[in-house]
């Protein structure tokens, strides 16, 4: 265990402590205590960052399940450092913001912060793990905590719906990702990402390499809300706004981006990787921005803009991966520029989107609504909020002097690179990107001007709006300040964070040690990129002014065919089908259930006996059968036949006991006193039990069972008897293995017990016994609950 391991585990350890603090400290908002954790972690991780030189990768490994090749290995390089700084840094700000956002009296703060810490630990774990399976475990834990946080106000139907939807989509992607990881393991024999990168040539030879790539991408795309899996993110907006700012824009949805970046060295050289990521990213970018424009809920607008912006980052990562393709090795460093843009935009997006979400939260908090149609003219009432929103939105629109301008320009050079260096028809990519950017500009303008300018409508607001308290404004202020600082001093992070991150994403492209440095400058001269931005501003302003004329174009596709509709009807259909299947065999009749069990016994055991041709009859070893043994055997057979035909329940109980006592007599004859004793007592007690149950059973009715049913039961009964007899005889005849009995003979020296049976039960095979008593206990509790608590639920209704 090192300090870094502890850093991941500290948020988890804090989870049980938070409810205690909430319960016993009433004067202070729980958030103040919680804020200490991300703040400490931020300081810890920041100590790894140096302004002078990039971080040398740090590796710490703790064996966890070595036999399965699972090690809790932490790999901290610039790429992971970037993510942990975002997670902890924005974490501090979000917790600070939530202190003012979440009311201490009304909300279940202990759950809120416990889930939040669970998420933070999981997120740190997934970006720091080098072992794919550990990464997967943390990855799913982020989905779980996201589920809990979306459903935080679980009394709302929409919250539960959104939580379930996000869980379904991200977890099914997670499963497919696990499948991909397992294929990688099969191909390489290791779960370590570093070792996989070293073995990437060997891994790519495997026949399932391309399927593994798609399985893993499915996981990344579902998590990062890429088309067509983006539908969960707008519904996830039911979460409290600090959560939307943290999980659903700044950190968790970036996990897919992280995974794509982290695994690019393994897959990047393949065309499929480039095509899938670039095309998915472009579609997502386009659709996200198109849909964001028409939203009237501010949070939904931001959700679609998040989808679109992550699509943008994905597109850039896809284009950047060309650098690893051997066909373009001459121009590989050009394409690395796209990866720089991806990472830079990822940082910018986390910052300005976090800021914007917090601003929307403030608007919601102060005015009581997020509906654009009800808001307007707030510029005089909330001037600070206006300024902060303006900074965030202009940065998102890609306007100077905000950091978004820089990464947007780099994005344009990235997409233009494809048409300049690859085939000329790749010009489609910059065109789509450009159109999407126009829409991005439009929704940014909506965000500012529909809310803060125009007519002020106090009558349509639930409460009288006023400027937010200073505590709530601190976090977005810091983020907004960062947006401006990064514009003027982008090179503070260029050589120490961006450059080594890109080298970690595209290690093979830099293998020959060529000099390559990232330098971001504001002014490149009057080039195509700048012209594109100017075009966006002009066309975007026109579109914004005349937007009402274009509204109808959204009606072209009827809502019946939307992806959400497909998801909903798919869910209903699946429930119906599984209900049909279950109702088909779960009839509630115990004779029916028993017949299933017995039919399967006959088919599987008897069938394999027949198919393997395993039946052997070997009576040579048998001892002679004595007269009284015959006598006991025949009595047993006679008793069982009599039991079938008797009409009285009392008699059948007695006959069953007779059979049981004869079995114990057999144990006596074959010199097994332990078994005989046990069988005797079991018989006694079960007879008492039978009699008790008998008291409750209805009298044997005159109802005559249909002949058909009796015949099928007779066939099953004979089949079971036959199968078991044949198995018994075969077991007697076969000698496939050396019997284990020899080992138990030493019970006195090994276990100090003269009773071999008991030594087996409590020593040699004590694990079996332990589980057996657990099962026995579970059965007892089951019966207790069934009988004593069966009316408990009905009282509530």
């Amino acid at each position, binding site marked *: 265990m090192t300090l870094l391991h502890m850093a991941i585990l500290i948020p988890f350890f804090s989870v049980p402590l938070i409810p205690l603090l909430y319960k016993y400290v009433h004067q202070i908002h729980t958030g103040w205590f919680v804020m200490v954790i991300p703040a400490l972690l931020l300081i810890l991780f920041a100590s790894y960052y140096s302004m002078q030189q990039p971080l040398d990768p740090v590796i710490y490994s703790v064996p966890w399940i070595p036999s399965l090749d699972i090690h809790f290995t932490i790999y901290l390089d610039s790429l992971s450092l970037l993510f942990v700084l975002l997670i902890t840094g924005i974490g501090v700000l979000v917790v600070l913001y939530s202190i003012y956002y979440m009311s201490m009296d009304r909300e279940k703060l202990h759950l809120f912060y416990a889930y939040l810490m669970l998420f933070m630990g999981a997120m740190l774990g997934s970006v720091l793990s080098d072992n794919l399976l550990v990464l997967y475990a943390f990855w799913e834990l982020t989905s779980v905590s996201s589920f809990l946080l979306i459903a935080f106000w679980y009394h709302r139907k929409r919250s539960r719906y959104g939580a379930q939807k996000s869980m379904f989509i991200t977890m099914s992607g997670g499963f497919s990702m696990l499948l991909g990881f397992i294929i990688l393991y099969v191909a390489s024999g290791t779960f370590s990402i570093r070792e996989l990168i070293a073995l990437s040539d060997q891994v790519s030879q495997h026949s399932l390499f391309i399927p593994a790539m798609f399985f893993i991408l499915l996981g990344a795309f579902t998590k990062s809300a890429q088309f067509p899996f983006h539908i969960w993110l707008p519904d996830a907006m039911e979460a409290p706004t600090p959560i939307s700012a943290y999980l659903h824009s700044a950190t968790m949805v970036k996990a897919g981006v992280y995974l794509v970046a982290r695994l690019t060295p393994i897959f990047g050289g393949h065309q499929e990787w480039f095509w899938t990521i670039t095309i998915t990213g472009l579609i997502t970018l386009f659709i996200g921005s198109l849909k964001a424009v028409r939203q009237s809920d501010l949070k939904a607008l931001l959700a679609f803009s998040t989808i679109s912006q992550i699509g943008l980052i994905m597109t850039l990562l896809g284009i950047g991966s060309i650098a690893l393709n051997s066909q373009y090795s001459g121009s590989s460093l050009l394409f690395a520029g796209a990866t720089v843009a991806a990472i830079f935009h990822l940082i910018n997006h986390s910052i300005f989107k976090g800021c914007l979400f917090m601003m929307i939260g403030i608007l919601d908090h102060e005015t009581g609504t997020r509906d654009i149609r009800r808001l307007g003219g707030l510029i005089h009432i909330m001037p600070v909020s206006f300024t902060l929103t303006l900074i965030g939105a202009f940065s998102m629109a890609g306007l100077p002097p905000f950091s978004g301008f820089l990464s947007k320009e780099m994005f344009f050079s990235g997409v233009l690179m494809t048409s300049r260096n690859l085939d000329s028809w790749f010009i489609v990519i910059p065109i789509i990107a450009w159109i999407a950017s126009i829409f991005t500009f439009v929704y940014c303008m909506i965000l500012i001007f529909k809310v803060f300018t125009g007519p002020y409508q106090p009558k349509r607001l639930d409460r009288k709006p006023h400027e937010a308290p200073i505590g709530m404004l601190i976090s977005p202020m810091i983020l907004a300040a960062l947006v401006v600082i990064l514009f003027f001093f982008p090179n503070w992070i260029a050589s120490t964070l961006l450059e080594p991150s890109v080298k970690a994403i595209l290690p093979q492209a830099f293998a020959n040690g060529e000099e390559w440095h990232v330098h971001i400058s504001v002014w490149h001269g009057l080039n195509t990129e700048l012209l594109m931005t100017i075009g966006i501003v002009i066309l975007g302003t026109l579109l914004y002014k005349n937007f009402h004329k274009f509204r109808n174009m959204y009606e072209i596709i009827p809502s019946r065919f939307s992806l959400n509709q497909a998801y909903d009807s798919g869910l209903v259909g699946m429930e119906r089908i599984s209900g049909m299947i279950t109702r088909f065999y779960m009839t509630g009749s115990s004779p029916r259930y028993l017949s299933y069990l017995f039919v399967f016994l006959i088919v599987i055991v008897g069938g394999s006996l027949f198919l393997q041709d395993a039946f052997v009859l070997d009576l040579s070893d048998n001892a002679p059968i004595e007269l009284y043994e015959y006598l006991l055997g025949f009595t047993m057979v006679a008793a069982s036949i009599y039991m079938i035909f008797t009409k009285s329940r009392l008699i059948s109980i007695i006959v069953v006991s007779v059979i049981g006592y004869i079995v114990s007599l057999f144990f006596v004859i074959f010199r097994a006193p332990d078994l005989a004793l046990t069988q005797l007592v079991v018989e006694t007690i079960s007879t008492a039990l039978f009699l008790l149950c008998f008291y409750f059973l209805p009298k044997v009715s005159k109802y005559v069972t249909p002949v058909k049913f009796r015949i099928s039961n007779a066939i099953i009964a004979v089949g079971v008897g036959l199968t078991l007899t044949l198995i018994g005889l075969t077991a007697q005849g076969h000698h496939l293995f050396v019997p284990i009995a020899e080992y138990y003979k030493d019970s006195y020296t090994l276990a100090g017990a003269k009773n071999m049976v008991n030594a087996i039960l409590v020593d040699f095979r004590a694990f079996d016994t332990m589980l057996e008593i657990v099962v026995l*206990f579970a059965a007892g509790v089951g019966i207790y609950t069934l009988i004593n608590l069966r009316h408990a639920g009905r009282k509530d209704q």
Partner: protein
Amino acid sequence: MKFTDVFLQTSTKILVFIIMTFSIFILFAGHHNPGGGFIGGLITSSALVLLYITFDLQTVRDIIPVDFNQLAAGGVIVSVLTGTASFLFHVPFLTQTFTYVDLPLLGNTELASAVIFDLGVYMTVIGTTMTIITSISEDEK
């Protein structure tokens, strides 16, 4: 259902003690002779069932105020904890051990950790059996 059978009641009062003593003997004898926790538990249960049949549920509950559900849970816990004790000696889960000790009155006696494990089995068996039987017999239609 209450019987007022004097013969049954009188003989039960004596028999129960004999059966109980025998069951505890069986529990500890199991290490070297036929017996063990499972059989011991069942015999104790049968003594208790005999009590229930002779007297009514409420009377028996007053005499033996034991929550059988808790007894069963306790048994499982005893068994599992006996298993985890082996971790203290860096040996695999459920490794049992035994030693010979000179005890007053009993002389040279073997003490085996397996017997504690068996005690857990004994408790679980009694607890579960009696939970099931009392649940069913208490149930009203």
